[in-house]
Every structure is written in C-alpha cells, then in structure tokens.
C-alpha cells in the first residue's frame, strides 16, 4: 500500500532550503531487478523441496524485484540556487541529552509513506514522525522490515534542527540482525514468548538489539544564509 499523498517537508524560509520525505523517491531506491540477491521467506526451501517432483517445470521467478521494499532513503533535499546543503560531517552528532528533556511538544505527527504485509510473512513499512519543541525539532524516518524467522532490518534517518543555531543534522543508521538472534536477545531480556511476539511488531523494542551495519552523519549550517 502506497500512501502517495503523505509527506513531510522541512523548509528554511530565508534560504528556501528544504528536506522532504516522500513515498515515490523512497520506492525509486528499491531494487527492481533482483540483482542484489533476493530475500526468501523462511519456508522457501521446504516449500520448493516438496514441489520439485510435481511442478519441476515451474522455475521462473516472474519479474524479480526486491519484494521486501528495502530502501536507503534519507529524504529528498532541495537547495535553492547553489545554496548550502547537507555535507558529510564526521564529528556531527544529534544532542540526545537535549532531546531527552521533557520540553513541551508543540506539534507532533506521524505519517506512513508505504507499507506491505509481505503476503503474511512479516512487515515492511516506511514511516516518518516528527516532534517540535520550543527550541528544536526531531524527525525520524524509519524503514522497518521484519521477515518472519529470517531477519529484522531497521534503517533510521534522524533529522535534528536547532532553531537558535539554524543548524540541521541528519544521521542515518542502518541496522540488521538475524531473526533468531533477536529472539534470543529478547528472551535474555526476560520476555515471555507472547511478549516476544508483541515486541517483534514494534521497532522501538528491537532496534537496540540489532547490530549497526552503516552509520553516517551530515549537517548544514543555514545561519546567516539568505538568498
């Protein structure tokens, strides 16, 4: 299901710099050829093994594509007329301690950009949420893939804006772990089997259990810039 009318856009009025989160460019980054090596459902071997004798003639995967809809989308940036934009910033970081403060939230929302049930083999969802406080705001664009009994994949793009400094930090973290490993860790945390099933539906409960496979930070300082 594509929620093509949903989007979230941050714009800096003086410079007309903006960063948008949209479904279409996110889906453009999904592999359409199957060349990256397709994921298989956990019972694929069992499924095909029992069919080798009876339906051996049927071997062709029609129009292979990454059916998990995995994307590395970090948002669509728009720089007005050669103005500044996000640049790699190895030392940059999002000040978590400031975001942990219980400053009143002035605006908050969440929109889904696309979602698939993977034919009842888990979930694949790309959503964006935002919260705006007096002095700062945080956006989290999260791709969450749970392929039952195979793997869990979380790709987070966080955008932090400090209103006073007019600075934007974008942090991308890709995490991935085997389903069985995650399950073991949840069990070690003391969860009962029913609670583990529930935890697997909630990316927040499992993100910290997944090894980081990719991390990058970019930033842009928009202060004093204007067109």
């Amino acid at each position, binding site marked *: 299901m594509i929620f093509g009318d949903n989007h979230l856009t941050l714009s800096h009025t003086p410079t007309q710099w903006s960063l948008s989160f949209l479904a279409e460019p996110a889906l453009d980054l999904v592999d359409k050829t199957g060349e990256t090596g397709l994921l298989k459902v956990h019972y694929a071997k*069992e*499924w095909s093994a*029992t069919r080798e004798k009876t*339906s051996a003639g*049927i071997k062709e995967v029609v129009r292979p594509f990454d059916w998990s809809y995995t994307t590395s989308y970090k948002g669509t940036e728009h720089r007005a007329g050669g103005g500044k934009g996000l640049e790699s910033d190895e030392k940059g970081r999002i000040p978590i301690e400031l975001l942990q403060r219980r400053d009143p*939230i002035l605006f*908050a929302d969440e929109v889904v950009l696309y979602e698939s049930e993977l034919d009842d083999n888990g979930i694949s969802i790309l959503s964006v949420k935002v*919260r705006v406080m007096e002095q700062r705001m945080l956006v*989290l664009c999260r791709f969450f893939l749970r392929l039952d009994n195979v793997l869990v994949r979380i790709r987070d793009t966080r955008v932090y804006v400090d209103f006073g400094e007019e600075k934007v930090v974008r942090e991308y973290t890709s995490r991935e772990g085997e389903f069985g490993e995650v399950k073991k860790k949840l069990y070690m945390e003391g969860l009962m089997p029913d609670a583990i*099933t529930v935890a697997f539906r909630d990316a927040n409960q499992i993100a910290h259990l997944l090894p980081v496979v990719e991390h990058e930070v970019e930033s842009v300082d928009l202060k004093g810039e204007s067109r």
Partner: protein
Amino acid sequence: MSDLDRAIAQLRACRPIPENEVRELCHKARELLIEEGNVVTVNAPVTICGDIHGQFHDLMELFRVGGDVPDTNYLFMGDFVDRGFYSLESFLLLLCLKVRYPDRMTLIRGNHESRQITTVYGFYDECLRKYGSANVWRYCCDVFDYLALGAIVLGASNTLSQPAGSVPVGEDVEIEVCNADQQIISRFLRKGPNGAMGQQQQQPTTNGFSESGSSGPPAPTNTGPPGSGASGASGGSIGNPAGAVLCVHGGLSPLIDNVDKIRLLDRKQEVPHEGAMCDLLWSDPDEIDGWGLSPRGAGFLFGADIVKVFNHRNDLSLIARAHQLVMEGFKEMFDASIVTVWSAPNYCYRCGNVAALLELSEDDSGLGVLARSNGDVNRSDGGMGGQGPRGVLMENDLLGYNRAGPARRYRVFQAAPQDSRGMPAKKPVADYFL
C-alpha cells in the same frame, strides 16, 4: 429464544460470548463441517464475499448492504480473522450463523485460518486479551481445520434478478455495479454473438459516490467495469445457463487440473507449506504466461491461459477468489474468467479502499443445475444437450474462448461510520521518541 439465537444477538452487539459457549459452538460447527466435502456445492442465488479480517463493524455494514441472514444466502471465502480489532466477534458470529442456518451460510478456509498465521497477526493475542487464556483460540483453530477448501456455485443465471422497485434490468446486462444504497453506478452489456464489444449503459448517480467509469466523457466501449482492468466483459449468448463458478480463497494449483482433485485432498489439518491445499489458499493470478514463482521463494502465480484452460476443462464460467486487497472492492481479470472480491473496506483502518460483494442470481430456466457432471473427464456434453460448441474446442483455441458467464451484480460499500465503532478516532499521544 434458543441459546444459539441469544448468542447471535449478543455477538451482533459485538459482545463476546462466554468460553463454555464458544466451546459448545465450535463443537457443533465441527460436526456440521465434517459432513461437508472439500468443495461445497452451493446453489444460486448467492452472495459471495471476500476477506473480512476482524473488521466487525464493516461486516455489519456488509449485512446491511447485502441483506441479512437467512434472507440472503452467503458464501464467505475465508480470512475472517487477524489484523482487525474484532476477529473473535466476527468469526464467532459467522460461525453461529453457519450453525443456525447451515444451508444459508457457506464458509471456506483462507490462509489466515491457521494456527501459525493467527499467532503472528492478531487473532491469538485478541483471544488471550479477551478471555485471559488461549482456550478459545484453540477451539477456533480446531474449527479452521474442518472448513471447506472451496465451493462450486451452480445454477447462476445469465440475467440479473430485479430487486423490487429498481430500474429494470435488461437481459443483456452482464455486470451491474451498485453502491451501498442500492443505486446503480454502472451497467455493462454482454458482447453480442457477432463479437461486438460490451457496451456500458450510463446511469446517472445522485450521490456522487465512486463515479469512475460512469462520469465524464463516454468511456471506451472495450473497457471492463471500474477496477477490473478487463478488456471487455465475457462473451456468450443470452439465455444459456451460465457455467458453474468456483470459489476459493487464493487461486489455482499446478497440482490441480480438475476440481475433483480438490475433493481428494485430506483437508483436516493445519494449512501445510506443501501441496495443493497450500496453493489453493495462497496463490495469486498475475499478468504472466503459464505458471510462475513468486520472488518470495514460495507461492505460485498463474496467468490467463491457466485460468482459461482450467475453466474450460471444468465447465466453469468464472473463478471467484479473495486474498488480495483491491482498492475498488473487486477486480475482474483475464476476460472476466477470474475475479478478486475484497470485503474489508478501509483495510486495517487505513488503506482507504472500498469493499465489494458479488451477487449471483438464480437461473429459473431450469437448465442450469441439471445434468451437471462436474469434473468428469469423459462426459459427453456437460449437460448442454449437445448444443454446446465446447465438444469441438481444442485447448489451443482457448485463448479466445469465453464461456457464457453468469450475470454479476457487485455491491460496493465503504467502511461503517466511525461513530458506530464505539471507539474514538484517537490521535496518538505525542511521544518523546528519539
């Protein structure tokens, strides 16, 4: 008032019945279902419904639009549970109605009627939450194992029945699409014997609901109904009894070339990963030639040629299936040889789709039900009194082949109003996510 009627009344109010009553109900249901074959025979008129997915209030809306039980004869093609918030009430109500009116209610199995799937997608948790134990879930799963795998609808008419006080239905109307208030959105005429394409009758609608295909400039005459993507409706001459309609949750299987093979399966088990039973509940039609594999590594896809050959061989005019969300509620494919019917409006409470049910009316010419020898390979003429042209049709002629399809009335409906759900449309509380 009997206990069963009281249970029905309570479930209609969306209140679960006590655990001991569930146990008794499931026991009775099993006794009833065990007597049914893998493929249930249903006589038209019948109203065919797709996935429900625990959307209880939308199921009530479906009964409002399609008529109440037992006045309307219903056939549900599985996926009663999971995803929605009221899987328990929805399934138990359908089961109560099945036990109360066995001849007016047919339930066949969907891929969600399984222990493994319901553990992951909500029904198990719901039972646990509402009863404090998994007993009710277990009783229900035991019933799932006894649900039929498919149904054959016999005696469907080539012409639509005429509801009282409605616009007269011509004999040549093949497809009629109505909204929830019994208003006609559009009508499609049969192709004539000379090969003329189906024509669309324009019907003004007054409420502006889903007018795609009936508003604006005249639609091209070779288009199917809205959402069908069909290049013309199925052919056939008027007055012949329509062929039978096979109803199954997912689709066909390469292991099943004839309906009788479905009858031979041992269905009383958890849905397996292997074999034809799995395929019937899981496979999907697709715009391909022949059979294909899903990129997921499990699951078959089948093309138009497969459907047409299967329908011809089995004397079917149409396959009705569910399993896949279609935004407009129904979708006819492959020259109207197969249709997907979807009956969960605004699926998961956020997809924004409409739902549909498919009404097949009764053939009163007396020719439809007689002498049908479903699946007999060496039958002489399939009960067509020697008039049928199929005796000389070779299978390689089949790509242009169209059985005289039954007249189909689709009723399209939207989700029940929010205020009937008894739960506020709440915004999530702003959370301090990091």
